[in-house]
């Protein structure tokens, strides 16, 4: 899934094609009006985002085009600080009168917030920002003819169903493009056009109460910030027969016995391990308690910053919003902070957080630029950008397997669960294979492994080199109230862990 060399799209031609509600000239008027109204009513800081989102999805079920959907959404949100308290209001009605109403409502809401305020909000300094960012796209997914995309997906789905024993199949394709304009009362004004695509297939085999699913490249599809060239590069049809055969084979495979084992996590599972047990606990809002009512808190409290041994010495994890192809790649976050690369774990030591302009000063740092909102009608929250386990020179992923005498290889996430402090996790994978004498052998079904976050990462004794390192995407990361679905990325290469409890099925 390496990304070909990119060229830039022409966003505003596309915007006109899609007939946006707000013209470019009117955009300046609308954002200025929102900021002027908010500051006139008492806001000491205000920002406004106008977001237009286009979405397209295709779902094939058992060679039948089950659903094709095209969605568009456009609106704006105004965020204000009044007396050190936050207020936010948003609307799909794009008019100057509505802008006044929404800005005034945001101020009223902030004043209500101020009635229960103990620590007035202060924001770290950042320079006023201006510019335009466009995520690289070679083959515009919205310009590829629909019948071509359907035909590609049908061909892959047909190959799944050519395998005897498949009960039903599901193949999906989706694309999303956002045009986002950000303006703030400090004079900042940025425009971004970001395109994400995803695709994948899934074979299901059923025998009595045994149901086995096998996905490619990932459960829910593989995602990237790219164009349709990424989908072509996945070679869905070329992998369909293999995964469908594995789904059928799993029905008669033995369940994974319980025990304590050496495990090797394939990148298709390792990225989820990074997501749940490193990405979320390094979100500074969780560590400061402000997500406690929904997602939870974090065991990585600020007093541990710079000293806590999170993992072994081969564990280096960064949050990198600049890496090509990631779902967490952008020009500026939704507070106007420039994309950057922030070390989170360095040689196993916890050294950094995903942070915002409000939270970073509370631990003596500057914002790491991790604030993103799920559309115009939601406030930005601290979200993972691309939280990546860095590859380590020395051993390829194949070398790690060859170097393992007695272990288990876990591949493709099936389910995930972790406690509210991000310590106690349990994962299931679609596939688990025995490793004996450096060779991959027998297949197990219903495989799980479980443990405590820092114990697992401390037990990691091998990380794959750059040859197997690639970006994976999570397009459905839930957080916040009202709940937001975030697009975040993870680069991993595969890794080995010792003494891990496996085979928990209740």
């Amino acid at each position, binding site marked *: 899934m390496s990304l070909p060399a990119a060229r830039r799209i022409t966003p505003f031609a596309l915007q006109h094609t899609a007939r946006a509600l707000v013209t470019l000239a009117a955009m300046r008027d609308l954002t200025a009006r929102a900021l002027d109204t908010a500051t006139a009513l008492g806001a000491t800081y205000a920002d406004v985002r106008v977001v237009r989102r286009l979405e397209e999805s295709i779902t094939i079920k058992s060679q039948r085009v089950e659903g094709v959907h095209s969605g568009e959404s456009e609106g704006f949100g105004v965020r204000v600080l009044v007396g050190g308290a936050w207020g936010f209001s948003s609307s799909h009605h794009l*008019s100057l009168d509505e802008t006044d109403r929404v800005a005034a409502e945001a101020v009223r809401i902030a004043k209500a917030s101020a009635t229960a305020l103990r620590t007035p909000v202060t924001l770290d300094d950042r320079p006023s920002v201006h510019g335009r960012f466009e995520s690289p796209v070679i083959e515009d997914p919205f310009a590829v003819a629909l019948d071509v995309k359907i035909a590609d997906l049908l061909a892959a789905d047909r190959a799944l169903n050519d395998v005897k024993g498949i009960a039903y199949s599901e193949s999906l394709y989706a694309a999303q493009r956002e045009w986002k304009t950000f303006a703030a009362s400090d004079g900042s004004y940025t425009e971004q056009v970001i395109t994400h695509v995803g695709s994948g297939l899934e074979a299901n085999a059923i025998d009595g*109460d045994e149901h086995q699913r096998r996905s490619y490249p990932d459960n829910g599809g593989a995602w990237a910030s790219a164009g349709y060239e990424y989908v072509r590069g996945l070679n869905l049809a070329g992998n369909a027969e293999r995964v469908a055969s594995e789904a059928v084979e799993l029905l008669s495979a033995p369940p994974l016995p319980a025990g304590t084992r050496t495990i090797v996590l394939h990148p298709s599972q390792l990225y989820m391990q990074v997501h749940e047990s490193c990405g979320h606990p390094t979100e500074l809002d969780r560590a400061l308690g402000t997500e406690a009512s929904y997602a939870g808190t974090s065991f990585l409290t600020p007093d541990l910053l710079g000293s806590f041994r999170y993992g072994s010495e081969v564990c280096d994890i960064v949050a990198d919003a600049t890496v090509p192809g990631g779902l967490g790649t952008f020009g500026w976050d939704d507070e106007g902070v420039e994309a950057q690369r922030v070390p989170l774990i360095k040689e196993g030591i916890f050294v950094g957080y995903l942070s915002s302009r409000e939270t970073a000063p509370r631990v003596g740092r500057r914002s790491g630029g991790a604030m993103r909102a799920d559309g115009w009608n939601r406030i930005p929250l601290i979200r993972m950008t691309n939280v990546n386990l860095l590859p380590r020179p020395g051993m390829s992923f194949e070398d790690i397997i060859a170097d393992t005498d007695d272990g288990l290889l876990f591949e493709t996430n099936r*389910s995930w669960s972790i406690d509210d402090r991000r310590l106690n996790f349990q994962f299931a994978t679609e596939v688990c294979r025995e490793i004996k004498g450096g060779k991959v052998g027998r297949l197990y079904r219903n495989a799980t492994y479980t443990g405590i976050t820092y114990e697992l990462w401390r037990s990691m004794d091998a990380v794959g080199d750059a040859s197997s390192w690639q970006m994976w995407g999570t397009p459905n990361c839930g957080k916040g109230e009202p709940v937001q679905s975030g697009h975040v990325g993870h680069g991993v290469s595969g890794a080995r862990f010792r003494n891990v409890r496996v085979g928990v099925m209740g």
Partner: protein
Amino acid sequence: MSERHGMGGDPEETLRLAERVVAAAEAAGAGEAEAMVYATESALTRFANSEIHQNVSSAELFVNLRFVRDSRIGVASTGRADDEGIRALAARAASIADNVEPLEEWAGLPEAGRAAPITGAWAEGTAHATPELRSDGARAVIAAADEAGVGAYGSFSTEASAVAVATSRGIRNAERRTSSRLIAVTMGPDDGTGYAEQGGVDAESIDPAAVGREAAERARTSVHPVDIEPGDYPVVLNHYAVTDLLDYLSYLGFSALAAQEGRSFYEPGRRVGSPLVTVVDDGRDPAGVPEGFDAEGVPKQRLTLIEAGICRDLAYDAQTAAKAGRRSTGHGLPAPNPWGPLPTNLVMTPGDDSFDELVGAMDRGLLVTRFHYTNPVHPKRMVITGMTRDGTFLVEGGRIVGPVRNLRFTMSYLDAMANVEAISRERRCLRGELGWFVTPALRLSSFSFTGATRAG
């Protein structure tokens, strides 16, 4: 730029918009067309560390068009209500329909049926809730937490919506709905945590101080939790924990599509619960948050899903119903819908015991306040894993003797339903992941805890 369309709470206006969309689709060549309009005005005040830190409001519009021409189907959605936006919506849906093969088994849109007006779905107190009402509620929770010496975290939300469905086959259904929810997590020193929640149609029926007191008391009594060995224990599941069982019954079990695809445990007449367990889906029950019709405009039927432990009916939409040779039960989701219909208004029949009696009859077991981050390990067997959260207590001799550290469970929820040995008579209206449920507390003879997080 568009005119303002303040439709959150105006079902007649949403219905007129739905009719315009159907007309635009027919003008674009649709043989059949279905328009769903969902307009909402919502707000949420969120607090943490005993102060309000997030406070938001939004006015949203969702217009969804299913366009059918010669059994070819295209679906498009928009947030626009202006003429240009509606024409573009119809054109996009028509373009999709032109590019797909006919669905051989397409049974057509549902036949017209007027949904009887629902009662108890709308409360003026919620529709006109102000930022000040929500901040007052947050302060009441915070005050209760302050009094107990713990921190308050939570949210107070209000929502007013209008929903309408119009189709070329004559469906014309529209109604207005409100809902409100206040949740509180409390955290104190020495690992004490608690939780409480109230919700329903009417924000003014919520007692924020009572929510705060309940959560604060739970945090106060859960300080210094002790380690306990994982294993099989009798449990009492608080109402909050039971919502998770109901979510998975809906999601994994009682969708007609899940049954037709063979991924559900469902078989008619199969025993999946103890004789005490009866679960219905009832969109018209005023004890919940009523909804009169589904996303296809079909009136919601009352379904008995589990009767005295036995599987009875399933939730159907138009397509799954046609495949089964019956009529939709009114449980369709917005098109396109590869997940199938879902029952989202589950109501569990109460028992005879008070909550204290459930606990009092347990010789040695655990009292679980709620579950966290649950996920299926084996969907067809309903094997779920997750953690306990915000107050897990050891019970001995019918008395709570103290808090224990949170535990991981890996357990078939079918086995859990089979192990139900007592149900509380008090039920609560609580929001799950999929809908609003009317939920009692349960006592189970055994529940499998498979892991622990040790102190240190």
